[in-house]
């Protein structure tokens, strides 16, 4: 079938296909996630009691009331908003105990060594939950230049469109320039 197309028809078909791809894949910024919210930076900040950059120390699955959940401990590397201790405990949906496992599609389960900026809402028992589940969990990776960068998404706002990651200092500065809602 490849050979049945003349070269001009073939090129035209490629252009049409690429244009279609661009429309389908790179469509404008959505406002909400079906299962897990995609909140803007301002919305995340407004809903968070504290924002930190943390390194995951460990994650412990628990089983109670018929549910498997996990508590991940993060060593606080940097406090970006609010006050937090040196270690924060973050509740996450799902986990694995023995032969049993539960997952909530789209909800991150941390692994030791994970590095992330976390927008955290306080629970009554002193633990935290990530605001918007995956929306408030922004992985930090080391750039080829050796600098920590935070993965960003266009769902955070128009200024993040077209960027895959921001230097952590720039992200922190942008966050701290938001009016504090709480």
């Amino acid at each position, binding site marked *: *079938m490849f050979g049945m197309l003349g070269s001009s028809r073939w090129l035209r078909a490629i252009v049409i296909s690429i244009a279609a791809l661009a429309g389908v894949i790179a469509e404008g910024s959505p406002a909400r996630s*079906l299962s897990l919210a995609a909140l803007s930076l301002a919305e995340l900040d407004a809903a968070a009691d504290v924002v930190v950059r943390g390194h995951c120390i460990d994650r412990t699955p628990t089983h109670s009331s018929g549910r498997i959940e996990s508590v991940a401990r993060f060593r606080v590397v940097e406090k970006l908003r609010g006050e937090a201790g040196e270690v924060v405990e973050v509740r996450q949906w*799902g986990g694995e105990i023995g032969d*049993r496992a539960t997952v909530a599609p789209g909800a991150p389960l941390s692994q030791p060594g994970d590095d992330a900026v976390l927008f955290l809402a306080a629970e009554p028992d002193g633990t935290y939950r990530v605001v*918007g589940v995956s929306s408030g969990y922004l992985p930090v990776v080391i750039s080829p230049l050796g600098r920590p960068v935070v993965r960003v998404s266009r769902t955070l706002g128009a200024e993040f469109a077209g960027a895959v990651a921001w230097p952590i200092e720039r992200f922190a500065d942008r966050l701290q320039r938001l009016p504090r809602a709480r």
Partner: protein
Amino acid sequence: MSRGARRLWSTLVLLPLVLGWAHEARSYAFLRPPDGGGVAWRWDLGSLSSGRIPWHLAEVVSPQVIGDRSAEAVLLAAFAHWEGLDESSWQFAYEGTTRRRDRDDDDRVQLITLGSSENLGEGVLAATFLSGNRDGLVTDVDIVFGRGVPFTTSEAVDPTRYDLESVAVHEIGHMLGLEHSGLIRATMAPFTDEGDVHQRTPERDDRIGAALLAPAGDFLARTGTLAGNVTLDGLGVFLAHVVATRIDGEVAAGMLTAPDGSYRIDGLEPGVYLVHAEPLDGPVDARNVDSQRQAFGRSETDGYATTFH
């Protein structure tokens, strides 16, 4: 163009697809259990009565759910979208309402609740909790809708509220074992907005995924496979989004690469396809498909960008 981008092989590959052999269905974006070595979640449909997945609806419904139809009618319609697909054999059994309103991952009862006491948190519309054995056998699925979310049950579009039917069709897709799709128009894309109803109807990408999990008729025999590898500097790229587009411009399917960079898109009709690979860099990103990272115990590959050669 960056050095890394130049070395991204298979970014754009044109392939004639004239395949049609029967094969094992093992591709596409499926949910995977943590540390499961990459096996996909799957139902043992043969063990269910008449092969139907039973489900219950919680009696209590949030007062934020309003509209012309009952929540029950909307959910039945949502299940019917998946049951009505020609290429797959999914069937469900509605077993009525229950006084239970909160999920239980152990009770082997598929509960759908619009009145849960559980707080899903800021902006979360709904969540599916899929449980089973570490080898991937599903034993329980519960779907929880956010109790404070303004949903509409109406068939007509309400631009001020979230469409319950669209959200339900998406969550039921997770119940089947489907992961989020990187294709923003797919029902399994993780995003919607108030007044958006397009995800009520599964797209081609969703249909292929559902069919590969529970094929009907000769689906596997009459469709073919595209397979290959995405590499960067000689190493496999994990969680690249590989998309197969028909020559008429219609996107047929997308899937994610394995840790070694390999991909395999099954369920494609014979034809000519444009194959394109890109990073999951938004709106859908690796956080939205975290079960892949959990399953394989590693993070996605960095350092490349969408590039057309």
